[in-house]
């Protein structure tokens, strides 16, 4: 790549065009530079506008009550989203209990044992699973858990979100496990360790940071999921720690309050969005920083 950068400086933009053909080529070149710059500015501006708008609309309503109080009845002032935040934490925790082992061991299988048609099939399945709309997993959890139990529940929400975690955790852990040098495995085997011991005591610790990154990424992703919770956790205006009962979640509360006719609730939706965005962006930055993504040089 560096060779290209050097070459660029040799093309002098101020050199007089020799003829019309050259002029046309340089004009179309300039046109593409400008258009692609405009596209980039558009994409960056949309994000910045969105963030600043939510910040401006939500920041005045960030206060202690937001994190300690439950919502007031319609139209009454005050109240907060504490039950939603608590519910979100519980549901994400449940999803992690369910999704992390399945995802991690799928990653281990793909990187350490899997070969041949079955491994290709599983890998393909995992990739395709990433693209399935999340509401489908909500339907699945409804039929398997909500309907037999005859009640919406935080557990059903956790299972639905857990399925969403599986492919994310599986893909990232497979990738980082593959990066562990095979000399490390051979050294461990040569010292007499068994295969399972090598994987558990040598390979996984070597890839630990990458695996944690994948897990955090998956948690950040499901923390913002709403659609599958509509038909599983359902929402609950009160504190609830019983996972077999309906439970609130922050994105769910944002969805309900955003379309509310009461301005106080709309304001709280903005404040909730701000909390959610802040948490997710913080995680993204932390991951980027931890994986060395801000250093120049590497892609």
């Amino acid at each position, binding site marked *: 790549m560096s*060779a*290209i950068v050097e070459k*660029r400086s040799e*093309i002098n933009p101020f050199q007089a065009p020799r003829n019309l053909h050259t002029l046309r*080529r*340089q004009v*179309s*070149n300039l*046109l593409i*530079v400008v*258009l*692609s*710059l405009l*596209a*980039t500015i*558009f*994409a*960056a501006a949309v*994000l910045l506008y*969105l963030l600043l708008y939510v910040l401006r609309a939500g920041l005045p309503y960030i206060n202690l009550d937001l994190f300690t109080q439950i919502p007031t009845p319609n139209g009454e002032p005050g109240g907060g989203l504490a039950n939603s935040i608590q519910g979100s934490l519980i549901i994400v925790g449940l999803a992690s209990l369910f999704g992390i082992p*399945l995802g991690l*061991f799928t990653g281990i299988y793909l*990187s*350490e*044992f899997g*070969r041949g048609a079955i491994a290709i099939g*599983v*890998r*393909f*399945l995992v*990739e395709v699973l990433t*693209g*399935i709309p999340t509401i*489908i997993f909500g*339907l699945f959890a409804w039929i*398997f858990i909500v309907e037999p139990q005859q009640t919406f529940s935080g557990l059903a929400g956790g299972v639905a979100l857990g*399925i969403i975690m*599986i492919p994310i955790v599986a893909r990232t852990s497979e990738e980082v496990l593959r990066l562990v040098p*095979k000399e490390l*495995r*051979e050294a461990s*085997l040569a010292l*007499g360790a*068994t295969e*399972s*011991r090598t994987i558990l005591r040598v390979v996984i610790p070597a890839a630990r940071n990458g695996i944690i990154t994948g897990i955090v990424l998956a948690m950040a992703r499901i923390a*913002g*999921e*709403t*659609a599958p919770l*509509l038909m599983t956790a*359902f929402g609950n205006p009160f504190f609830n720690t019983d996972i077999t009962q309906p439970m609130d979640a922050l994105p769910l509360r944002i*969805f309900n309050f*955003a379309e509310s006719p009461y301005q106080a609730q709309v304001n709280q*939706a903005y404040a909730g*969005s701000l909390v959610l965005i802040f948490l*997710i962006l913080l995680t*993204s930055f932390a991951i980027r920083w931890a994986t060395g*993504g801000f250093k*120049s040089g590497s892609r």
Partner: protein
Amino acid sequence: MQQSFSRARGRVRFFEGSSLRLSDTLFRGFTLLLVLFVVVIVAGVAWVLVSNALPTIRQFGWSFLTNRAFDPVHNVYGVAPAIFGTLVTSAFALLFAVPIGVGTAIYLVDFCPRPLQKPLAFLIELLAAVPSVIYGLFGFLVLAPWLQSTGQPWLQRYLGFLPLFQGQFHGLSLLTAGIILVIMILPLITSVSREVILTTPTAQREALLALGATRWEVIRHAVFPYARVGITGGTILALGRALGETMAVTMVVGNQASPISPHFFDTGYTLASVIANQFNEATPGLFFSAVIEAGLLVFFITLITNILARILIYRMGQGRVGGFVA
């Protein structure tokens, strides 16, 4: 890049007692069991959808796809308006997101000053990290009112001769959903295109530069032929995302079936928004089954687009593109 366990194990097998193998067998068995569980879940999702959609499939057959009424009162169900809405909004999203996304990728790889390259790419990937309900909130509270009061009247004044921009101004409309989808799939297209463009062999770029080509000619004649398959794969991946997007679209599309017409200002439905909107009202029987069949359709459509996209991206010779986004 396959790990060399089988070979390495073959070498050390001489020195291992047979009792040591037991823990390995257990570990392998446990791993395989969990993988099997994942496969069973995916199969279970498909099976659950098909078996619960069977009543409507039996009752209506193919007419479910062409019938315009989704009518619990008369117990007649069809999703033609939803299919129409899904296709129209996704097509709109691709129409705008592909040029903008590929353009951004080109800028990031070829024209952007080096120090800005990574922060800008990261910023655009952040667009993908914003939860879909927040796009919905923004679309519902900010974009839709603005479109109704300013955007749609403006479009009608200048482009009103097109049937697309005729009719009443509804803030919540197919147009609003389309615009939100453009923003949502943009980072996916940018990120896949950027990584594919980065894989173009430097020698090919340099060869064209040595022949005196401009930067744009390098992109057109060296980068595009090489990256075309991957960019197409990324586009199809983004299409799958747009077809299945639920929350943001449900919040801005209006959720009122209007007659199928080329009017972009009309409210509409998409398949995913039918599920999000109707599921909790659905009574057991045909109504419930109809909602599940809408889910089955979304499942199959996104499954097919994703398989297609992955095959194209695999053909690029590198399985993993899209990084954190895809």
